[in-house]
């Protein structure tokens, strides 16, 4: 251990606040130990929290962690925070946007005790969940009943469905089922002032929980992508869909790993997709052909999923880092490609028919299917996707580091070209952090065709070494540059796709003229005492004035590089 190192100690809550919280949850479920708060302070994909650790910045440490058991507990906690002006942050796993945002002692409200599936309504095909329920849990229970939620994010257990409500909820099968945000029936929320809001038909006592609208204006729209600043979800009802696969995912024939044998590909290689599902992998000679094929396939109406993955296959489908790097260098996986997920959702003849359609399209557009006759070794290496396309277990293998920066623009399919071109420009300008950064520049970005191809999400990332703060800052620089790019080309809302977060909201007013002023109004309405992670989604004028000049300067620099005027 480092001797004589500078310590980093958190601020404490005032004792009367601690006592009040303890009275709500009980002594067992409130913690302010230095060791405990440490584990809530360095996040998953937020480079800023890593930089703050390197800089020994105490503001990344919360003061206290409290674990409620029910909506009533959450409401009581939020009211205490209002009474004593204590900022709070709702916390499930700590992926991103869960750090304190002010220098005040901050309370973490951790939902690990609220992990029940409250009900699965098989008649009306919905499930009501507490905030800590994740995708694997819901899928497992629903699949036993011939249903499922419609998709998997890349990280089946990292992503709790209620947390994803704070974003958009991206799935492998968004082509057919849409984003999570299109699959929500209702939410129950504790608003920042402690009021309880229930949305949709559920809020009418005898109407039932079946429709996301009404009565009155659609308040769900004001809550989606709110990053927990407009309220805390304590119950969420999601739509379920017919599931035509097995009740549980079959055992991989290769067996189970052990600590002495963990990296063998045989454990990760289901030879076939799930029952009533099929994956088709297609290689193209360039991005234009890939995008043309994807557009045709999306618009044809076939398939439940349509995505393209470049470097990500090198992460997810490689059992060691050496394999990942080697495959990147060799361009082992097709640079330009797409994979189509087909399913017999209506009949046994659906897959054969839809496959015919896909093959016809590829015949017309150009492209080669991976098969036993063409790159069988590549097709074999892609086998993890056979299960991952439905329940992604490898998707958080982010180059075995953490991904400090992601570009996640959204837009029409052709904008993938813009993304690739700008990413390449950024790499040429700033230099790569890792060879895997070339993903999305020398090959396709990750492309998700969403909602029958009406629009798509594109992803490129870089992964700095977590022990090198200069690399992390460089990765963050990419992020800021990316925000400028997406704004310049109108590539959908900001950096993190469907989410607005400071300082980008204020520094990129082009994204929605005066959107930040509108959100300031919302914040006054929902959060009059400014306790719900203040400064997360929108800065008040006062918070903006206090924001570090160096970051404003950095953002303006990136704006300048993209021929955009500085923001004062």
């Amino acid at each position, binding site marked *: *251990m*480092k001797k*004589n*190192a*500078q*310590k*980093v*100690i958190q601020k404490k809550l005032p004792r009367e606040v601690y006592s009040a919280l303890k009275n709500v949850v009980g002594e067992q479920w409130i*913690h302010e*130990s*230095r*060791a*405990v708060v*440490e*584990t809530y302070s*360095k996040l*998953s*994909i937020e480079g800023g929290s890593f930089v703050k*650790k390197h800089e*020994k910045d105490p503001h990344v440490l919360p003061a206290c962690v409290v*674990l409620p058991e029910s909506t009533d507990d959450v409401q009581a906690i939020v009211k205490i925070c209002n009474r004593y002006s204590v900022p709070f942050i709702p916390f499930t*796993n*700590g992926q991103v946007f869960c750090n304190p945002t002010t220098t005040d002692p901050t309370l973490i409200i*951790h939902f*690990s005790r609220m992990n029940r599936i409250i009900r699965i309504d098989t008649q009306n095909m919905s499930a009501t969940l507490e905030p800590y329920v*994740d995708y*694997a*849990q*819901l*899928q*497992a229970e629903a699949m*036993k009943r011939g249903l499922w939620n419609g998709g998997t994010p890349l*990280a*089946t*257990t*990292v992503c709790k469905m209620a947390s994803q409500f704070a974003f958009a909820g991206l799935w492998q099968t968004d082509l057919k089922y849409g984003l999570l945000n299109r699959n929500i029936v209702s939410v129950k929320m504790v608003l920042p002032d402690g009021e309880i809001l229930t949305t949709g038909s559920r809020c009418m006592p005898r109407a039932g929980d079946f429709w996301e609208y009404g009565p009155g204006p659609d308040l769900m729209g004001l809550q989606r992508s709110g990053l927990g600043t407009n309220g805390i979800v304590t119950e969420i009802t999601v739509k379920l869909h017919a599931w035509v696969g097995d009740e*549980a*995912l079959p*055992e*991989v024939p290769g067996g*189970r*790993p*052990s*600590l*002495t044998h*963990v*990296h063998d590909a045989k454990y*990760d290689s*289901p030879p076939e997709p799930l029952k009533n599902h099929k994956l088709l992998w297609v290689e193209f000679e360039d991005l234009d052909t890939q995008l043309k094929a994807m557009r045709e396939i999306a618009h044809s109406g076939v398939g439940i999923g349509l995505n393209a993955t470049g470097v990500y296959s090198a992460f997810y489908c490689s059992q060691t880092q050496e394999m990942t790097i080697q495959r990147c260098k060799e361009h082992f996986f097709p640079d330009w490609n797409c994979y189509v997920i087909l399913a017999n959702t209506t009949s046994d003849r659906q897959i054969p028919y839809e496959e015919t359609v896909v093959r016809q399209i590829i015949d017309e557009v150009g492209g080669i299917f991976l098969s036993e006759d063409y790159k069988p070794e590549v097709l074999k290496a892609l086998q993890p996707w056979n*299960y991952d396309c439905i329940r992604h*277990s490898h998707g*958080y*293998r982010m180059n*075995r*580091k*953490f991904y400090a920066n992601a570009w996640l623009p959204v837009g029409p399919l052709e904008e993938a070209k813009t993304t690739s071109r700008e990413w390449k420009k950024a790499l040429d300008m700033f230099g790569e952090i890792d060879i895997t950064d070339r993903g999305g520049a020398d090959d396709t970005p990750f492309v998700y065709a969403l909602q029958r191809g009406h629009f798509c999400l594109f992803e490129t990332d870089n992964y700095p*070494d*977590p*022990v*090198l703060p200069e690399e992390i800052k460089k990765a963050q620089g990419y992020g800021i540059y990316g925000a400028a790019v997406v704004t310049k080309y109108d590539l959908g809302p900001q950096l993190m796709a469907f989410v607005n977060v400071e300082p980008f909201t204020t520094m990129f007013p082009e994204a929605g003229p005066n959107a930040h002023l509108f959100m300031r109004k919302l914040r006054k309405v929902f959060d009059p005492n400014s306790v719900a992670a203040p400064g997360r989604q929108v800065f008040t004028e006062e918070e903006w004035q206090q924001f570090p000049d160096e970051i404003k300067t950095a953002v303006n620099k990136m704006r300048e590089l993209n021929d955009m005027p500085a923001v004062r």
Partner: protein
Amino acid sequence: MTYYEPKPHKKFFEKTLEDYRDSIWGCARCNWCQNHWGWNVKSAEYSEICPAFHEFRIFPYAGMGKMHIARALLEGDFDYEDAPEVAKFLYTCTTCGACELNCQRLQDKEPLQVNETLRAQFVKDGIGPMPEHKGLIKSVKNYDNPWMQPRTQRDRWARKIAIKDIDKEPAETLFFVGCTVAFDNTQWHVAQNTASILMRAGVDLGMLGKKEVCCGSPVARIGDRETFFDLARRNIDMLNKTGVKEIVTFCPGCFKALSHDYAEIPDVPKLEATVYHSAQYFDRLITQGKLSFPCPVNKRVTWHDPCHMGRHCGVYDEPRRVLDAIPGIDLVEMERIKDQAWCCGGGGGVRTAFMDFAQKTAVKRIEEAKKTGAEAIVTSCPFCEQNIGDALNATGDEMGLFDLTDLMVKAMDKGEG
């Protein structure tokens, strides 16, 4: 040391926390240290894999939390006086390895190794192990076993069995009995069964008897590496001198220590013999036609994978094949099995220091077993049998508990049901 910088090869027991620096910093909070591998999840109820996180619900108890705590301690962000309870978080862990297996599979990081290395640091710095462990260490040093039992009693279980004393007569195969089975008379039957099955199958078997000393696994797990190294050297010397080619042990802790841990200690000779868990050996004997089961044992059972045998050392299929070879046995599987098996709660020093938690963990395993419709749990580990057995007694549960050898002996002699 940065991520891609080639790292000098070091054995596990010579590593310090600094050797895990990039791993510790790079924890991705993916949750696989707490959760059942996604492809194998069959229900929400059995979707978690970390007993400590499942019980206490805060992150310091999970593999991820230990990585974060280790980082902060390594970098001096806080020290022991700022968080006196920090050792408790590290020691409330059965070292089942579920966190490390899933983490290795996905991210190539080592939360269990970090935990054990941090425990060793705590012992070195005087804040570990837990007060309750000190008696265990003293017993191992004074009596060569963790049970405060005199050495002269070590072979009492074998009084009615004609097994060679390897000091007096050479043998091909050594039965390394282990301390728990030797000194816990409720488990003597396991040692007796194992020896008699092996000898009936024609194995030329010997044992060390009173000369056997603790394998060192209990002290290794709680971080007293100095005592562990001493025991390892003594055992390697003694075992190599016997000239045996094979060592069979029933205890997964001994099995892991002899077959894997000793090789990770710097500057000790190699243990020459090949080490087997008894389930592996039985499986081999069955395949060779040297062991058969003429009498049916009509029972529906479920197999509990001991962590140090299964997840740590990869012995999953052999005991299942043995059960399959017994006529009348209907094996039904729990949801969390093999690499994703739920720990019994008995390992890592937890039973000694946190008995409540150990028992709660066992109760959860029993409930999971009952859901299969099985009449009995079968396993092959003295700690699992103690902890699950105590939980069954405490709750008055009628679920049966058998050692693998109990069913084998029944099937060899008179059958059941």
